[in-house]
């Protein structure tokens, strides 16, 4: 034993330079059995703050040292329960509550279909619980340990068997404990010293750390700034998905064709689908047998004949019958379309007092000499009443005087519906009380219902 004590003394001498404090004694044993025997003697001597260090879990050491059963299994059980609950709640919330999936008429929530994920998450959570729980209970990670400063102790992870008694144990005594450990027949006893030097991070590192932290915030600040700043440049798209595709758009150049035009003209003698407008009565309001003789430029507003005189629209061969089945549905449609497109200028009754007209006239009255608004003619006035339905249709199609063409906004069928409704407005606008059936005349005089 004397050699062991000398060794430990020389070990102690090495470390006293910094007035190291004695932190405990470490005794090395030759094999696991000797260690176990010694461990039980240390336990019986009443030490609490002691531990054995072995390269592998030695069978029976727990009993020898009196280690109590760990509570790790309960931690893992709690994690498993948490994982299972999370999984069930997640599946219920996502598929049965927040976004209900209808899959082959199956119930939104049914346990069997949710078992696999529940099982997997329970295992996942408890695996983390087992590893992290073990580390936490063992106070790991702990990168500094004074035992690492003892050279022979490094064998504890290959083939060394050690018992360490710490100085903070109430029964610890500087010489008695050393004697006691020597009595256990170790290969050697080493004093473990806590170097009394305050290891501190060099001060120069502090400003550096601050600089790095500030620089680390720069990207975040830039991102935050860009998120609140309006920008006129297109957004950066890392992945275009299918937003930009190689294809010819209107008015684009193309190398594929000899003329360089991306848009292709119609092939001679062909008509595009839906462009065949053979039925002139329906599409133009002109009588089919005489339509060929009509110069189509005459149909436009303010058209002039080649000799400079104005075209008399009334003389053209207009149809006199609406080329659609006339019924209440068409009338209702006409009323609806009229109220949307026409009433703004012409007024709901056709009098020419729409809100735009009213506003325009107010502005012109306030600023004499400014503005070119023409008061629309009342639709139930004599000249309009005399017009054939074909001419009315043509007016909507091409416009007249200041009125623009509505062909782009109103489809052909709707134009005819409006023409039909116009006829109804003309009837109501130019008639008198005698045109109203006797049995409902009373309603006209009644007070409007609130």
């Amino acid at each position, binding site marked *: 034993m004397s050699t062991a004590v000398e060794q430990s003394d020389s070990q102690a001498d090495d470390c006293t330079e910094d007035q190291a404090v004695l932190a405990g004694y470490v005794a090395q044993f030759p094999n696991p059995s000797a260690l176990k025997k010694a461990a039980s003697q240390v336990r019986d001597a009443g030490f609490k703050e002691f531990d054995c260090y072995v390269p592998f*879990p030695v069978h029976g050491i727990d009993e020898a040292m009196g280690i109590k059963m760990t509570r790790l*299994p309960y931690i893992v059980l709690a994690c498993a329960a948490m994982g299972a609950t999370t999984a069930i709640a997640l599946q219920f919330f*996502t598929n049965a509550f927040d976004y209900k999936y209808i*899959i082959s008429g*199956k119930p939104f929530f049914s346990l069997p279909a949710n078992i*696999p994920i529940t099982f997997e998450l329970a295992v996942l959570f408890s*695996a983390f619980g087992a*590893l992290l729980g073990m580390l936490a209970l*063992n106070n790991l990670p702990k990168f500094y340990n004074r035992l690492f400063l003892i050279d022979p102790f490094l064998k504890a992870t290959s083939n060394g068997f050690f018992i360490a008694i710490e100085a903070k144990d109430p029964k610890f005594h500087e010489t008695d404990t050393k004697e006691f450990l020597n009595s256990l027949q170790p290969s050697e006893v080493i004093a473990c010293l806590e170097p009394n030097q305050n290891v501190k991070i060099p001060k120069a590192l502090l400003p550096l750390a601050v600089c790095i932290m500030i620089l680390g915030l720069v990207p975040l600040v830039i991102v935050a700034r860009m998120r609140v700043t309006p920008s006129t440049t297109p957004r950066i798209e890392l*992945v275009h998905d299918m937003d930009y595709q190689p294809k010819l758009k209107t008015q684009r150049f193309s190398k594929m064709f000899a003329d360089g035009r991306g848009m292709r003209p119609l092939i001679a003698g062909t008509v595009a689908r839906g462009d065949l407008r053979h039925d002139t009565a329906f599409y133009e309001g002109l009588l089919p047998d005489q339509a060929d003789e009509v110069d189509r430029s005459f149909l436009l507003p303010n058209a002039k004949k080649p000799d400079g005189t104005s075209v008399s629209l009334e003389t053209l061969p207009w149809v006199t019958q609406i080329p659609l089945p006339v019924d209440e549905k068409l009338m209702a449609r006409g009323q609806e379309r009229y109220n949307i497109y026409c009433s703004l200028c012409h007024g709901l009754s056709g009098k020419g007092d729409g809100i735009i007209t009213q506003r325009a006239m107010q502005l012109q009255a306030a600023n004499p000499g400014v503005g070119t608004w023409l008061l629309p003619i009342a639709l139930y006035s004599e000249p309009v009443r005399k017009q054939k339905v074909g001419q009315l249709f043509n007016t909507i199609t091409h416009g007249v005087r200041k009125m623009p063409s509505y062909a782009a906004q109103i489809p052909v069928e709707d134009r005819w519906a409006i023409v039909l409704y116009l006829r109804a407005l003309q009837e109501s606008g130019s008639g008198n009380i005698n045109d109203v059936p006797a049995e409902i005349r009373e309603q006209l005089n009644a007070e409007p219902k609130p």
Partner: protein
Amino acid sequence: MASITTTPFDVTVETPGTRAPLVTGNNDYQTVTDKVCHLAEKPTHTIPKAYWVALTLCLVLLANLGICIGILFTQGVGVWGNMSPVFWGWPIVNFVFWVGIGHAGTLISAILFLFRQNWRTGINRAAEAMTIFAVVCAGLFPGIHIGRIWVFFWLFPLPNSMLLWPQFRSPLLWDVFAVGTYATVSILFWYMGMIPDLATFRDRAVTPIRQFAYGILSLGWTGSARCWHRYERAYLLLAALAAPLVLSVHTIVSFDFAVAQLPGWHTTIFPPYFVAGAVFSGFAMVATLLIPARILCGLQDIITIRHLESMCKIMLATGLMVGYAYAMEFFIAWYGGNPYEQFAFVNRAFGPYWWAYWTMVSCNVISPQFFWIKWCRTTPWFIAIVCVFINIGMWFERFVITVSSLSRDFLPSSWGYFKPTPIDWLMLIGSFGLFFTLFLLFCRFLPVVAMAEVKSVMPEPDTDEAHGE
């Protein structure tokens, strides 16, 4: 410290009443440590040439994989042979192949641990590492198979501006969770097992870089008996958790097929059949890796012929299960009386993919039968050859299941014949590059054998008491 003196003898002979030692040769705790640390501690210039040759070759294959993935991302999934009606082509075949291989590691570390099979200690670390690398390869293929890789996170239930959630009644989503959980738990299990051995590396390290790196990785492990107590408990719990997990993962992978209504897929035998096949292929891959690795790392005393023989026996057993499943599928197709099912199976064996089917049967059912003969189980080069055939056969099994069923679906007008493209081939080969590169790096930088566990099953050196009991 005295060492155990064992006269060289045949560890594969079963002597009634005695147990063959798990570690052969004149080894004690110190020499076991030295041997396991050998390759990892060698200075770079003394590493065997064979290692460099193997690593270079694997890195070339890995670079090839990287290029293929680059081509895939820029050109789209059209670079593969996946075409109507076979939309699940090689990427899914490769996925199932690799994830199957990834089952042996956890099986060895968890199930054999629970069964107290002490021989697992020699091979479990390498097998777990192999598991993780196989799962990396497996995870790669469905990842790139989704086409729009940049929205891969749609696989997970994350709140999003579309106010959509994934469909939790689909086996494909179960698969995401199962493979994700399996990969995570395998890594945790592997890492936890390595902590004490990393501490050994740390304490033996001589260069500051090694001291720092292994110091960080070993988390300050001291070998305290109180820590070991909790550690062992945690290991047991993880094993108990991983054992059902390993069975669940390939079960869920098989649901990807079995829940579909395609003839040839829609069978209840799939879960057990897939799990048996996974263990079969996993053990074949472990043996393929360990036969050269035990020589490269000088571990013949720790990974003994007896270990290889035990693995051969498991391969023989699981190979028979797989063969039984093949036969049972045919029987049920006939017995079930469903004409579509019958057509699917006759088509497998005698249709346009007959060559794949019979490659599968001869590799998976016939080649393991050699392991009935003791010489075949105890001759490493022969085991390696059989294992390569088993791996080929298991790849073809997944090919047969996926492609033969898909190419003959319900509408004869849409039937087709799957042709792989060069990119398909290069990706499959490249995935082996990834796998072997990771394994070679593992051999060089991490403890290849669980030293602490091997030591705990070694007989105690000469003392007055018997160990343990």
